[in-house]
């Protein structure tokens, strides 16, 4: 059979989307920084490209990460993506095999069954035809599941599913129609021309007995082509852009390109790569406060559509819980921060007053202790650290004992990078002037910024949990196990933010009975007090906190240990569970040891430990 | 505004004002600012009301301006005041009639001090005796000159040839009354009607047919404030205060302002010119100012006295619009003529068509 007019919608659609993609990806890549461009050139002909292909296969086609989260959801995504991919590949092979040519035009492969007048005769042809039928059924099973998911997302292990807009609706509807229409068109053709295979032929025969299928053949092929065309046309305004863009993302990511502190082609690529699967919704603690429209998936959508409001952008704890869950591996926190930088760039402060030199001159020292603003409101942490320093005979400079600028991290969390730079510069000069080798920090918020943004050559930045572990390992701290069950809350900025999971646990294991929990380390909760969220109300913070505390209470701990003054303050407000910083716990254990040596404890079963409130 | 409420307040603040035989003490500055006013007062009392009022040419300044400018100490001013009382006592008078509000305040302040601290009185008697050999009695009645005019307001109304009425429309003239701060703000019971709603000028205005305007900044100081004016760099404060009052009274379209203080009419009058020079702003109709009168001038106009005889040409804000409204005949040619009829030159005036 010769090409007929119904192929045109498909062909035009395909041409359109191909051109569109080439242009838009071209724009994005050309807007990358010179360094990023050179990264592409340096890596394109290396193993990294092959690794990218492997990753594309594993993630974009097989959806391994989703499989890990939920098998049915994984199967659904895999059947659609991998199934469709195979349909195209096998379809082309089938067509090439039939026409005995290596350059078969796309429409001939896509509408192959329309162009053959009889069933395959060769063995290879038969196998290919049968696999095509099976693949189509495989894809259709995915489509069925997708229908089902719309109706009931809980079956897929998801509490929520994303809401759709018009572009997405068109694309989604046409996507859902493509495969049933193809199946019907092929079956009807098989009923008329007997060119089907193991599934389409019986279906076609059955339809032929029931219906005047002659009348349906051409409309069905038209509809199939039309739905493909519609899908291609709707793609640029739909979430299905993620299909091609994710491929680009994987390559670029493997070449070492990351989201920077400004909106760039790469951040646009990340934004377009969001498939809006909604997996990020589930792990989001904002749900506990009934805030349901500020999660990453929605914010990325608004960023893409350029209609993001501050109310949504800033209503996020930046706890990063959603990030490990993202099947596309998007840098969700950084994308949001980049947008926050953009949104607040008009009004950064310059802190001219820092130049007036109200701060003390830095003394020469080996060790600097920087407590952090918040720690000044938790004197128990301060006192513990001071006592431990004294015990370990460490000479140190308490840098922010008085009159010291903030570390700058709280500003960065709300996008005020330019303002933060001024504070960083100021503090950095003071730190460097001291000639210190070590900077011990009690607040994870400060710790992260000192570590990542301060450029302190020759100075080791340590959170006090790392530092205390070091002192312990050097036998500079007495060890005494407190007979109490402790659960440890990972502060976001220390855990997911800086990868410090083990040091606090090693310490607590040594000094207490540390109880492991389900949601810890990468999956740990945010306390709800995060400074990154400037929109959330106090009662909403409390709801988030109480949810977390309720789960912790399930482990029946004696105390809750954490390593952040803000987490401590946040939890302590509820009075549900005594909460102490790790430094307090260790100092108390040491004290307890001293007491028991002195033989003052009569009843050993009752731990006579008093914490400061 | 409820009249009954005000009447209630006025009734609460009735003061005793002597009936006759006054020892008159003049104001230092009024004789320069409004030289005809005190003369008019004496004329009214002697000629119209037939009262006995005596003044001794040897009386001095009470030194109140020096006192309020932190230059004259309290002991000194007490002794100076005691000397005035000695002159009064020597002349056989017991009632003092004070022309100046500052002096009135000073006399009251000192007499009250002596009541509270008799030792002070003895001390001052001693001072005066040592310094001048004089002795004195504390006056039995201290009245401000406006109190006396207030007391005889009905008599003046009967003798009067004019009323505070626009003779063309027949409507009462709208009058802003401004009371000197030291009249009753220090001792509300010493002023007719108290400090919040003083009645001394309002009573005259009402008795003579005018309508009192009660505008929001009524209580506000004219801005003199002693050092506010006396030190040039402070004068901006003085103008600002007057300006605040003008702005507040402007919507009521007052026909004139009347005051019972030496400084207030001076500043309310002169600052209108200054503000016009600085900002081009005037507060009366058609770019005119609001005429500012002393209560003696107001009484004099009611009694049909020649405005130029009362020194009303000394006002910087022209009074002619008011004279026209009241239907008072005057000869514009004689405004700047001296007693011999010779022209003495024209001062700069607030725009008023002349």
């Amino acid at each position: 059979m010769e090409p007929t007019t119904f192929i045109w919608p498909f062909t035009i659609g395909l041409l359109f989307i191909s051109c569109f993609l080439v242009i838009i990806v071209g724009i994005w890549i050309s807007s990358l920084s010179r360094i990023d461009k050179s990264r592409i050139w340096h890596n394109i002909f290396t193993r990294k490209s092959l690794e990218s292909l492997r990753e594309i296969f594993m993630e974009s086609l097989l959806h391994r990460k989703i499989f890990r989260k939920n098998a049915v959801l994984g199967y659904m995504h895999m059947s659609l993506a991998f199934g469709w991919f195979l349909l195209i590949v096998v379809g082309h092979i089938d067509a090439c095999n039939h026409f005995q040519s290596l350059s078969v035009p796309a429409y001939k492969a896509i509408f192959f069954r329309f162009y053959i007048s009889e069933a395959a005769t060769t063995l290879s042809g038969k196998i290919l035809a049968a696999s095509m039928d099976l693949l189509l059924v495989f894809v259709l099973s995915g489509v069925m599941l997708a229908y089902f998911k719309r109706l009931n997302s809980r079956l897929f292990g998801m509490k929520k599913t994303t809401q759709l807009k018009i572009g997405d609706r068109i694309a989604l509807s046409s996507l859902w129609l493509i495969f049933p229409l193809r199946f019907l068109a092929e079956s009807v053709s098989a009923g008329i021309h007997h060119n089907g295979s193991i599934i389409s032929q019986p279906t076609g025969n059955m339809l032929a007995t029931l219906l005047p299928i002659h009348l349906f053949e051409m409309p069905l092929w038209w509809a199939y082509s039309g739905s493909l065309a519609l899908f291609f046309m709707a793609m640029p305004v739909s979430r299905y852009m993620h299909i091609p863009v994710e491929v680009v993302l994987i390559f670029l990511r493997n070449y070492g390109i990351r989201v920077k502190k400004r909106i760039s082609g790469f951040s646009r690529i990340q934004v377009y790569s969001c498939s809006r699967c909604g997996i990020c919704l589930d792990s989001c603690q904002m749900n506990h406060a009934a805030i349901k429209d500020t999660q990453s998936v929605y914010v990325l959508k608004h960023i893409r559509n350029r209609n993001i409001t501050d109310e949504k952008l800033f209503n996020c704890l930046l706890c990063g819980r959603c990030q490990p869950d993202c099947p596309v591996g998007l840098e969700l926190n950084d994308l949001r921060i980049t947008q926050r930088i953009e949104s607040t760039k008009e009004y950064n402060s310059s802190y001219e007053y820092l130049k007036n030199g109200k701060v003390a001159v830095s003394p020469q020292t080996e060790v600097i202790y920087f407590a952090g603003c918040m720690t000044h409101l938790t004197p128990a942490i301060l006192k513990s650290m001071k006592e431990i320093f004294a015990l370990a005979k460490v000479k140190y400079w308490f840098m922010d004992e008085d009159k010291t600028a903030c570390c700058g991290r709280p500003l960065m969390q709300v996008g005020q990078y330019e303002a933060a730079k001024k504070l960083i510069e100021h503090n950095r000069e003071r730190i460097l002037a001291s000639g210190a080798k070590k900077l011990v920090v009690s607040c994870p918020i400060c710790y992260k910024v000192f570590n990542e943004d301060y450029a302190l050559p020759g100075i080791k930045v340590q959170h006090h949990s790392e530092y205390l572990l070091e002192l312990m390992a050097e036998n500079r701290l007495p060890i005494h196990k407190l007979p109490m069950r402790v659960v440890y809350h990972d502060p976001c900025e220390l855990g997911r933010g800086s990868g410090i999971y083990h040091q606090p646990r090693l310490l607590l294991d040594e000094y207490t009975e540390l109880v492991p929990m389900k949601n810890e380390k990468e999956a740990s909760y945010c306390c709800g007090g995060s400074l990154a969220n400037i929109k959330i109300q106090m009662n909403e913070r409390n709801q988030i906190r109480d949810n977390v505390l309720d789960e912790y209470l399930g482990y029946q701990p004696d105390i809750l240990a954490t390593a952040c003054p803000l987490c401590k303050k946040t939890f302590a407000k509820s009075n549900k569970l005594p909460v102490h910083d790790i430094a307090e716990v260790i100092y108390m254990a040491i004290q307890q040891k001293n007491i028991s040596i002195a033989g003052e404890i009569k009843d050993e079963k009752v731990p006579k430990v008093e914490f400061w409130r | 505004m409820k009249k009954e409420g005000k009447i209630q307040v006025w009734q609460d603040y009735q003061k005793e004002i002597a009936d006759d035989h006054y020892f008159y003490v003049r104001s230092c500055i009024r004789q320069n600012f409004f030289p005809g006013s005190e003369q008019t007062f004496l004329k009214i009392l002697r000629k119209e009301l037939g009262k006995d009022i005596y003044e001794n040419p040897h009386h001095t300044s009470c030194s109140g301006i020096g006192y309020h400018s932190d230059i004259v100490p309290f002991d000194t001013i007490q002794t100076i005041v005691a000397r005035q009382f000695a002159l009064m006592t020597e002349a056989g008078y017991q009632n003092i009639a004070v022309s100046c509000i500052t002096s009135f305040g000073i006399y009251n302040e000192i007499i009250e001090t002596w009541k509270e601290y008799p030792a002070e009185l003895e001390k001052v008697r001693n001072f005066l005796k040592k310094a001048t050999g004089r002795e004195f009695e504390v006056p039995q009645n201290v009245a401000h000159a406006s109190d006396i005019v207030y007391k005889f307001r009905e008599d003046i109304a009967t003798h009067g040839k004019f009323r505070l009425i626009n003779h063309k429309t027949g409507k009462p003239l709208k009058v802003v009354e401004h009371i000197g701060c030291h009249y009753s703000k220090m001792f509300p019971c010493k002023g007719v009607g108290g400090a919040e709603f003083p009645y001394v000028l309002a009573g005259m205005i009402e008795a003579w047919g005018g309508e009192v305007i009660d505008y929001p900044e009524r209580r506000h100081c004219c801005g003199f404030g002693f050092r506010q004016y006396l030190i040039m760099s402070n004068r901006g404060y003085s103008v600002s205060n007057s300006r605040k009052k003008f702005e507040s009274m402007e919507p009521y379209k007052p026909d004139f302002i009347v005051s019972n203080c030496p400084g207030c009419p001076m500043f309310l009058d002169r600052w209108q010119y200054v503000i016009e020079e600085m900002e081009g702003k005037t507060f009366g109709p058609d770019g005119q100012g609001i005429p500012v009168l002393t209560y003696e001038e107001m009484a004099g106009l009611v009694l049909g006295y020649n405005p130029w005889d009362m020194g009303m040409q000394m006002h910087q804000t022209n009074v002619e619009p008011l004279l026209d409204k009241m239907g008072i005949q005057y000869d514009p040619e004689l405004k700047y003529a001296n007693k011999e009829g010779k022209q003495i030159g024209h001062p700069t005036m607030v725009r008023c068509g002349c």
Partner: protein
Amino acid sequence: MKDFGYTVIKQRTIDYDQFDGRLLNEVLQMEPSFKVCLSCGGCTATCSANDLVSFNVRRMNLLLRRGETVELESEIKKCMLCGKCMLVCPRGINIRNVIMLIKKSILKYNPVKS
């Protein structure tokens, strides 16, 4: 204009009738928790920036409520957003958002700028 060596001095009085409430309304609408400020001054007492420069968080509320936009703009910039004040506030006011809202909205309403 004649120079007398002095001029009419601008009043220190807050004239509430001249108050332009747009900035205040915008901030309160976006952050209603700010309505309940008691002017206790706890925020100022704990303020990290106040250690280094004269900066009074409590006064931001007053400047905003009295329409002192010019001063507000220069003052608000001093905040380092460390968040200590929020741990102290007895009324649970979301102070950091207030600061950010003012910084943003003042660009629109500052009479000097516009």
